[in-house]
């Protein structure tokens, strides 16, 4: 079976006698919680059955004037497509977590301004791996062992000691940096990027001279390099053009690619679907027909611009800053989620749905753009796709 615990989408998970084999603790927590959680549908504070909760959700959506859909990063592509159709029909807003994290990078990749590759290629060919502002040991526990550093690949048969080089650029030490052959702690990401560009061009940088020279020398020696950009890089950059310049320079030295370190299993799937549908990635208003940062979920909440929110597979009350999250409760909240969360505590309508990969089959697009298919293992609970389809048909 497949694990949808993070963006690795590990496909070698086995269930045997109630034990989960090969999954990390994130995956085990998700899989076991999915099997053991008993979560009841709620509508306006009353426990109801699932169908009644869906009817209540439909009524709230039909009565709303400013409707928004948020989340969707943990559900299969078909459910995401239906959600996009609902937003289109209701002329609502639609957004996912990518507006806060990896959307900027994914957009550059989809517009082919940045060269990207698949994780299988990285495993088979990469001899230089750089994690920038990311700690995959915590966020994607199997990322390092499955794809980047420890596995043997088709052209990397000698193992990590001889065939691979791992470097980490971060603001602080992390578990990942403990594994790396080189760690560079930077205070200012843009300054270090500029230093790397300077060294790649044969100029003397104004800062980080030794580290920049060492890194560029190593990249020059490598045959296939890849940079994984995490949230640290995302928030350390005010201008994505600088990163693009760096990647162009590195590509002059060797074959060099970039992959974002998105955490949600199907965030890229949502980005690609919306991109195919309207040419934009997130923060889209179907009423205005445009994408704008003012239509991102956090901006809409800040301005108290929405009266009804459909949240699918997300917990914004926990993940957004308190000032913004506290405004969620002012709107009618409809939540589709497998497990109780902070958002489920304030939601007006809660519809428990199955966990993708366990109770729901379908397809997801991994953060590197590879489509992963998976089957449902148990069909005891209703799926996000079923609920969203019911809503779409009713409106």
């Amino acid at each position, binding site marked *: 079976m497949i694990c949808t615990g993070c963006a690795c989408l590990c496909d070698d998970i086995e269930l045997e006698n109630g034990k989960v084999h*090969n999954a990390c603790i994130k995956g085990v927590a998700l899989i076991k919680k999915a099997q053991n959680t008993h979560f009841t549908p709620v509508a306006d504070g009353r426990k109801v059955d699932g169908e009644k909760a869906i009817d209540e959700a439909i009524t709230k959506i039909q009565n709303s004037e400013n409707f928004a859909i948020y989340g969707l990063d943990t559900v299969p592509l078909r459910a995401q497509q239906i959600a996009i159709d609902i937003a289109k029909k209701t002329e609502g807003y639609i957004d996912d977590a990518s507006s806060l994290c990896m959307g900027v990078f994914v957009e550059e990749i989809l517009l082919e301004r940045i060269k990207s590759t698949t994780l299988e290629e990285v495993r088979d060919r990469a001899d230089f791996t750089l994690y920038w502002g990311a700690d995959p040991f915590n966020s994607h526990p199997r990322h390092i062992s499955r794809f980047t550093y420890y596995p043997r690949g088709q052209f990397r048969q000698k193992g990590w000691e001889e065939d691979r080089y791992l470097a980490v650029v971060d603001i602080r030490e992390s578990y990942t940096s403990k594994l790396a052959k080189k760690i560079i702690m930077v205070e200012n990401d843009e300054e270090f990027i500029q230093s790397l560009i300077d060294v790649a061009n044969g100029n003397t940088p104004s800062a980080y001279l030794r580290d920049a020279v060492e890194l560029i020398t190593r990249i020059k020696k490598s045959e296939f390099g890849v940079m994984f950009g995490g949230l640290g890089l995302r928030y350390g950059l005010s201008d994505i053009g600088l990163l693009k310049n760096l990647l162009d320079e590195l590509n002059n030295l060797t074959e060099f690619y970039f992959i974002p370190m998105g955490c949600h299993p199907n965030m890229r799937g949502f980005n690609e679907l919306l991109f195919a549908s309207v040419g934009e990635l997130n923060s889209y208003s179907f009423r205005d027909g445009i994408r704008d940062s003012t239509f991102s979920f956090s901006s809409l909440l800040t301005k108290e611009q929405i009266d009804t929110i459909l949240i699918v597979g997300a917990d914004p009350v926990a993940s957004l800053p308190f000032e913004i999250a506290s405004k969620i409760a002012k709107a009618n909240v409809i939540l589709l989620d497998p497990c109780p969360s902070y958002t489920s505590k304030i939601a007006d309508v809660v519809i428990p749905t199955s966990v993708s990969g366990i109770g729901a089959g379908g397809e997801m697009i991994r953060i590197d753009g590879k489509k992963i298919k998976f089957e449902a293992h148990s069909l005891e609970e209703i799926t996000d796709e079923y609920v969203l389809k019911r809503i779409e048909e009713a409106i």
Partner: protein
Amino acid sequence: MVKLSPMNLYQLLPKTNCKECGEQTCMAFAFKLVSRERELVECRPLMEDSKYAQQKKELEELLKPLEDATETGMIIYPERCVGCGNCVVACPVNVSEDPHGCAIGLGPKNDRVILRIVDGKVQAYNVSTCRRFGKNKILCNGCIVTCPTRAIEFAEG
């Protein structure tokens, strides 16, 4: 947390080199404690003299993980393990025994591997094929250096 090592054990032993245990020095006794050739009760001053009571307690606590250690001296701390699989993929025995599974980063595809992840925690199997097994052992450290949380340790370091 104090690491289980001969030096740390020695610091807690009486350090009188009384030879009552049969070893020439307390340091030699500490080494044999770690390799499980000797037991703590063989140190008579430590057991009998009340002034060593606190050290005795600390030594017993320090040696406790050895009770669950494998024959190769491998100690697994499940509370520190996150199931990343670095050790599974980096272990040279796993790589040679399972070239189409562990070697390329996947879960084990046969039962001959030494390390595998069950319920998100590493577990040891087939320890007799580990490079650290037996008298002619090689002090391989593939599973230790790849674990930043120190979930795997060997009694002999």
